[in-house]
């Protein structure tokens, strides 16, 4: 692998941020960034929407020169007092790691009776999954997850990195953002396909909480099929196995499953847990080969580039991503229509129910118009 790696010229997802999100999935109540006040600010704010507290030791020039042991230990005491957490995470940053800050000593200094996950991480890793890994290793050491889960996650992380390098935004040195195809045109096409009596598969292959919005697209397709009297022409696959993954991830799967059931939508095939998006491809391929090879179209949401093209041979492919830099790679894979759900992620933080997607809403409206005519 070495030497063949693409040189990086796009700012990439940060390992520090990846560590923060992983701490959230482990249900920490407070995450402390040990570093400058501006580090990871946007994601820190987003995560607060998701119900965890994110604070910073706010190291300044003095902190860089003299270190921030005292700052970190007193902040630990302060958050313990303020928020009464049951689990705390401490995350390194570039600045604190470069000057050689230790996270363990201040944790000992503070001497809280709350477990503290220490993640010595900076943003200098080419793969941001390193931040997840470091967090999980720390969690395993502290007994928050078991060895088995750690090993399972390691496999998934490796696969996720490969998926991104194969057909993801990391497959190129530079990718321009794109809004993808116009939603109402694609919606029209979907309605037309159903009207013509074509058979379709919805494949939701979502990464964790993003499923709250991608599930809405599966729901919308089913609602339209029902309205057209073609309910049986649609089968649904989704990675919502609620027995797999970190605590919060299982919770998402439970919530989405309940919402879909309430809407009367059957998920015919569970293709994995909500953290298994990089490895569902094989299962999807097998299922299609065995049962659905005569289907005409597929609507793939979430991480569409993880589904191998061979499985979809002969089908018209409509994919929905939340990455504006994912459009070109998907088109090049051979997807016929590619749609971007802009700003999906912020809307799926801090929720327990399916949230409306732009494409879902468009599809419902377009169907109404077309049926009305």
């Amino acid at each position: 692998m070495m030497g063949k790696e693409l040189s990086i010229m796009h700012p990439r997802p940060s390992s520090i941020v990846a560590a923060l999100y992983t701490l959230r999935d482990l249900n920490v109540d407070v995450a402390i960034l040990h570093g400058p006040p501006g580090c990871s600010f946007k994601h820190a704010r987003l995560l607060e929407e998701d119900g965890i507290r994110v604070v910073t030791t706010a190291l300044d020039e003095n902190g860089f020169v003299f270190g921030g042991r005292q700052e970190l230990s007193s902040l630990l005491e302060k958050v313990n007092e303020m928020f009464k957490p049951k689990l705390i995470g401490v995350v390194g940053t570039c600045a604190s790691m470069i000057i050689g800050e230790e996270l363990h000593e201040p944790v000992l200094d503070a001497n809280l009776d709350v477990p503290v996950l220490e993640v010595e991480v900076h943003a200098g890793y080419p793969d941001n999954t390193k931040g997840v890994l470091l967090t999980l290793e720390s969690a395993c050491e502290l007994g928050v997850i078991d060895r088995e889960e750690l090993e399972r996650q390691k496999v998934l992380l490796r696969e996720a990195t490969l998926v991104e390098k194969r057909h993801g935004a990391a497959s190129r040195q530079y990718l321009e953002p794109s809004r993808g195809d116009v939603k109402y045109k694609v919606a029209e096409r979907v309605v037309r396909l159903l009207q013509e009596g074509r058979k379709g598969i919805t494949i939701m292959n979502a990464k964790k909480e993003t499923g709250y919005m991608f599930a809405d697209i599966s729901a919308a397709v089913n609602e339209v099929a029902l309205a057209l009297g073609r309910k049986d022409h649609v089968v649904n696959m989704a990675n919502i196995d609620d027995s797999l993954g970190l605590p919060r991830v299982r919770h998402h799967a439970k919530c989405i499953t309940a919402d879909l059931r309430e809407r009367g939508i059957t998920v015919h095939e569970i293709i994995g847990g909500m953290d298994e998006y990089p490895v569902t491809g094989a299962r999807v391929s097998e299922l299609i080969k065995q049962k659905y090879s005569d289907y005409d179209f597929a609507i793939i949401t979430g991480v569409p580039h993880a589904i191998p093209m061979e499985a979809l041979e002969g089908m018209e492919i409509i994919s929905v991503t939340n990455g504006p830099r994912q459009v070109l790679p998907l088109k090049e894979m051979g997807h016929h229509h590619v749609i971007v759900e802009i700003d999906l992620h912020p809307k799926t933080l801090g929720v327990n129910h399916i949230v409306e997607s732009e494409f879902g809403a468009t599809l419902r409206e377009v169907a109404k118009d077309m049926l009305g005519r």
Partner: protein
Amino acid sequence: MKDQKRIAIYGKGGIGKSSTASNVAAACADEGYKVMIIGCDPKSDSSITLLGGRRIPTILDLLKQHLDVNEKDIVFEGYGGVKCVEVGGPEPGIGCAGRGIIVAIQKLQKVCPSMKDMDLIIYDVPGDIVCGGFVAPIRKGLVTEAYILTSGEYMPLYAANNICKGLAKIDTPLSGIICNSRSVTREEEIVRRFSEEIGSRLIAFIPKEQIVQDCERDGFSVLEKAPRSDIAQVYRKLAKAIMFNDQSVLPGSLEDERLRELTK
């Protein structure tokens, strides 16, 4: 700006940089030059022998307390009117001394207009250039000439050789090698050969004299405490050599094998 010498003295830790720097500073002050010495080592002891053994507050001490720092808070006059500044730094093993040097020097430039009036500014830098901060005085264009202090032993020469590599890499000319003797055999010859082979020259040989240590213990330079000693004369000569030196070269460096051969 007037014709100003801005030099840095590099060399292996413990080889005598601070003691050489303060004696040279004192000698130049005796000649009537306006001199400033800026100690860039977190140990902050470059200027101690110019101040009668007194320690002065360091720039970083003050910055740490979020004080509004002015020239009078960080620049202290010592022997012969030499202006003494100490950068300071974190405790050993904590934080980042390199970053400290960068921050302190930026502050000093900002608040110290009298720097411009100096005839000679000596940056007394830590022994090993272990990270970017330690070459900040050079990188930021503050130092125009570098000197290397070494003895004739293998390890100090090894360090000197490494410093040459570093200087070449950052395009900084070397103005000469100073030998601070540790009384090893053929010392002057070894250091002279080394100097010539890297393309520079030996500009002074400072013999090992107990009197330097004795004066230091009392908190003084030789120039102040023992002005009539032979060694004081050596420092005066070195001071003159530095003030009038106009030869500097981008240094080469030797293979380790050659270094070992030289010091055998």
